[in-house]
């Protein structure tokens, strides 16, 4: 089992009473959350619980209706300035469920595009850095391929490398393994685990209970737009405090994660 890193003391993300509606549907109903530097937080919960929306508000892709978001000293409110949004985007990297690579560019160009055109890194340095990151995710030999020539798992690893090329302080992962064939999930989780062990602050929305348990410092359970429970994964999984969490976990763990249930039981006994 992986050795866990120690999260720092500094609070890098502070969400205060976040509200968000789409039309008349209130998706987030007052969410407050603090994340420390180097901490790995898993957000779980039934679909429609608002977990993805919450993640998207943290880097300003989704605007909020009420509350404040503070990321490394930058504050976002319901009327965030373009400058504040730019600063947030530059500090927070994001990886999406559907990879969202740029299909018309090679893997190398996918990774160097933003460093060259946004951060004004010169081409040579950007490419050297991209190749180094491709090495980290184990795809150096694919540098000159196009996204369509890669498997889903490989594309997702490139997407992680692409986000890392902007040197973010925080990485957000939005169900990054949900679109993958089961046999491809492991390679992506491995990269994420390496990242976590390297001290990256990470927030992930995930269905990977095992990953949440082994790598995350804290699990947050959301339901109907609020956080219903949080704590270390083992605690939350083994002794859910509320009936809602218990019900969700029973279903989540039973359906596709029979193996994980066994692992947890083994972990509990030992």
């Amino acid at each position, binding site marked *: 089992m992986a050795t866990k890193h120690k999260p720092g003391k500094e609070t890098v993300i502070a969400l205060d009473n976040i509200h968000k509606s789409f039309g008349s549907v209130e998706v987030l109903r007052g969410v407050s959350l603090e994340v420390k530097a180097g901490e790995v937080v898993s957000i779980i919960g039934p679909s429609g619980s608002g977990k993805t929306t919450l993640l998207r508000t943290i880097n300003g892709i989704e605007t909020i209706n009420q509350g404040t978001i503070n990321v490394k000293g930058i504050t976002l409110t319901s009327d965030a300035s373009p400058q504040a949004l730019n600063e947030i*985007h530059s500090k*927070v990297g994001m990886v*999406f469920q*559907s990879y969202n690579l*740029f299909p018309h560019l090679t893997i190398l160009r996918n990774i160097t*595009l*933003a460093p060259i*055109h*946004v951060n004004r890194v010169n081409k040579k340095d950007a490419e050297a850095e991209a190749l180094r990151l491709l090495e980290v995710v184990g795809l150096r030999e694919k540098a000159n391929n196009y996204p369509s020539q890669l498997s889903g798992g490989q594309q997702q690893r490139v997407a992680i490398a692409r986000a890392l090329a902007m040197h973010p302080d925080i990485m957000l992962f939005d169900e990054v393994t949900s679109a993958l064939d089961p046999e491809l999930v492991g390679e992506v989780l491995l990269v994420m685990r390496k990242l976590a062990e390297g001290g990256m602050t990470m927030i992930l929305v995930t269905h990977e209970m095992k990953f949440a348990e082994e790598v995350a410092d804290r699990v947050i359970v959301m339901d109907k737009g609020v956080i219903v429970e949080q704590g270390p994964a083992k605690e939350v999984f083994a002794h859910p405090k509320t009936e809602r969490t218990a019900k969700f976990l029973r279903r989540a763990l039973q359906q596709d994660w029979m193996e994980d249930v066994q692992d947890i039981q083994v972990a509990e006994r030992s």
Partner: protein
Amino acid sequence: MQNELIANLIDWAPKLSSGLWKTILLTLVSFPIALVIGLLLAMPRIGKRHIRILSIPAGIIVEVIRGTPLILQLFYIYFVLPYMGIRFDPFQAGILGLALNYGAYLSEVYRSGIEAIPRTQWEAAKALNMSWAKTMRLVILPQTLRVIMPSLGNYLVSLFKDSALASTISVTELMFAGRLLSSDTFQYITIYTAVFIIYFIISYPAMIGVRMLEKKLAR
């Protein structure tokens, strides 16, 4: 009879070929301008809030152009604008009329092409801190162009044929040359048949080319 025909054709060749040259020039100059006009007219309608204000005038221009005949637009530019102190020679007026008209149609092509690019591409670029303009230029437009390439090819062929309307404002292009020659010689059948063939042997390969391009891109 046959000798006479050949002799006549040799006689007319310089005028027809200079007309053809003008037609090609008219097409090749107005099309790139139309591509730029189309893009400029499309941008406000898909852009961010602060350039959305321009979407109303852009929309009006597009609808007015699409809602009136090209020949009338050419007449307007060539015969009416001089009264407002704006004067063009026939060739310039032809270029302007064709470029504006095709620009309006191409703006719709761009617009639907851009809207067909998944929203997630915008989000990915945003998460990488790319501005709207950079996202458009580096991520969205390159993908759009690939999608709309066959449409653009079809419009190019169409423009080549529609350039014949410039003959009505005395641009000395192929159609005009044919009309001039036939009214001089009364050889309507041979001259208009020759013009017919010339237009077709240029547009037909171009149409086949577009179709091949379409197949290649569809893979």
